[in-house]
């Protein structure tokens, strides 16, 4: 056991004082958690995605609980980028100064929408440290398939978006073919990859024969996703050189440590923020204790250090 371990990491140009981040859509816009703890304890926080125009999202019910997790079909309800920027107040502008890095997620239904939002988000610089592209939304111009679901689409997105901003660009990846698609994003200049997004799932009430959500399917999250996510981070980290932020079912420091060992530079806490809102600082402390127990002086010695 060592006394001190350096926990600061560089996630694709985002200088984080520690590896703990939050998953978009599970942390609101940060202020919701200020009653629980000082959110600037975290290395970064990722804001819920904003789109070019307000999205109402899907009808209720948008969420159901499952064994070891939950499933949602929120449909990325958000106020739209103009409203978000207009209402970006001193709280948001102060977050970077308090020492946490702000990652702004954006969502879109087409590459053109993506371009429009990224151009607008430039206005938030220097109040944000990076933009995260959510490429899992359906592409409404191309039959509803995920926007960034193939290597060719990844190339098209990055060629369109990369020239628009000097901010680091992270890509929030769908849980499909992450190594190949990750390489395509890397080749066109992505600074880092965040994986995984929620896993498509379905839950049926067998008495009514209806979906338990207002939509037939939703996105699985929570502990039941954790080991699928660790596997995908490991596969992707073996294929790319840019840093990865691991996401999926993290409840404890050991869960976060698995992502680090699998090759993640940072780790996002997701659904656990919702049911255990004090958990993120605890997970940071547990991760730090684990790093000490491994006898290293810097967390970097443990990134990708799985032996297999």
């Amino acid at each position, binding site marked *: 056991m060592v006394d001190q371990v350096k926990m600061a990491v560089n996630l694709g140009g985002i200088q984080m004082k520690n590896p703990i981040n939050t998953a978009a*859509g*599970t*942390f*609101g*816009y940060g*202020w*919701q*958690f*200020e*009653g*629980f703890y000082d959110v600037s304890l975290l290395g970064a926080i990722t804001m*819920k995605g904003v789109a070019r125009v*307000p999205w*109402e*999202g899907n*009808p*209720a*019910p*948008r*969420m*159901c*609980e499952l*064994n*070891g*997790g*939950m499933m*949602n079909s*929120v449909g990325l*309800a958000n106020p739209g980028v103009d409203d978000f920027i207009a*209402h*970006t*107040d*001193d*709280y*948001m502008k102060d977050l970077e100064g308090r020492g946490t890095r702000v990652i702004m997620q954006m969502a879109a239904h087409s590459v053109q929408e993506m371009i429009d939002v990224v151009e607008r988000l430039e206005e938030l610089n220097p109040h944000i440290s990076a933009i995260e592209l959510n490429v899992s939304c359906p592409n409404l111009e191309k039959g509803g398939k995920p926007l960034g679901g193939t290597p060719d689409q990844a190339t098209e997105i990055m060629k369109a978006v990369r020239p628009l901003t000097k901010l680091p660009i992270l890509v929030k990846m769908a849980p499909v073919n992450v190594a190949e698609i990750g390489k395509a994003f890397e080749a066109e200049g992505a600074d880092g990859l965040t994986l995984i997004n929620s896993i498509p799932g379905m839950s049926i009430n067998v008495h009514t024969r209806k979906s338990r959500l207002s939509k037939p399917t939703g996105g699985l999250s*929570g*502990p039941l996703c954790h080991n699928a996510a660790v596997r995908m981070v490991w596969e992707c980290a073996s294929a790319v050189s840019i840093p990865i932020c691991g996401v999926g079912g993290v409840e404890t420091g050991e869960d976060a440590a698995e992502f680090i060992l699998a090759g993640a530079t940072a780790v996002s806490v997701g*659904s*656990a*923020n*919702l*049911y255990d*809102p*004090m958990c993120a600082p605890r997970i940071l402390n547990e991760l730090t204790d684990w790093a000490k127990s491994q006898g290293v002086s810097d967390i970097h010695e443990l990134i990708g250090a799985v032996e297999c």
Partner: protein
Amino acid sequence: MPLRGNVQVFDFTVLSNTQVAQNLYRAQLKVPGLCKSLAPGQFVNVNVPGDKRHILRIPLSFSLADKATDTLELIYATVGEGTRRLSQMKPGDASDMTAPCGRPWRLNASSKRSVLVAGGVGITPIIAAARKLTELGVEFDAVIGAQTAEKLFGEEDLLALGAQNVYVTTDDGSKGTKGFVTAALEEPLSQGVWDAVYTCGPEPMMRSVAKLAIANNVACQVSMERMMSCAFGACNTCNVPLAKGGYASACMVGPVFEAKEIAW
């Protein structure tokens, strides 16, 4: 955009937990520091221990938040695995809750005569409202409904808290008037007996009550129930459809809404 959420985690200890009707329990919890910041109509999100497979908290209304003794009273129905485990918690058992959640009833202190309308476990925030109306000096009646007499609860509580009349309906006629709560509301509402309606219960019941109130041009507030994860404005899963279009969160804008705000 508010600058800061005010929901926090509070530890609680069970003082008592007893069955009061079929599938209906009353728990009294010692929750140091919470009750002073709760108002009738708000709710709490309870961590029920004992099963790691169930990760979410259970959002529950309260019937009493006594700041003098730090006692919170929940009247809850056992509808699933989580509430069943809650019903098995014994005096001395401990866990935590997040609170205060949502916005309270906006009780009209200058009402000449109000009516409280509860269906089933919707009685819980109605009891809290009754206590507050009496504090405000507002005269009120109540209408409470349940499927059967065995599931009915709250008549004595509401009378003790100052209700002048408590009208009872049951779906099967095993107690009070056979039928739904609306049967007891239609005539007095049309005669202008009440100038404010506050209701909580199954959504079809609240829809009927809301439509009656709106048709008679009487102010009406409803307390909506939704599946939700966080109950503090982060997850966006507890959406209620609005008459003007779009949605509002039950946990932040609600659970209490003006009946006319909702797209029924």
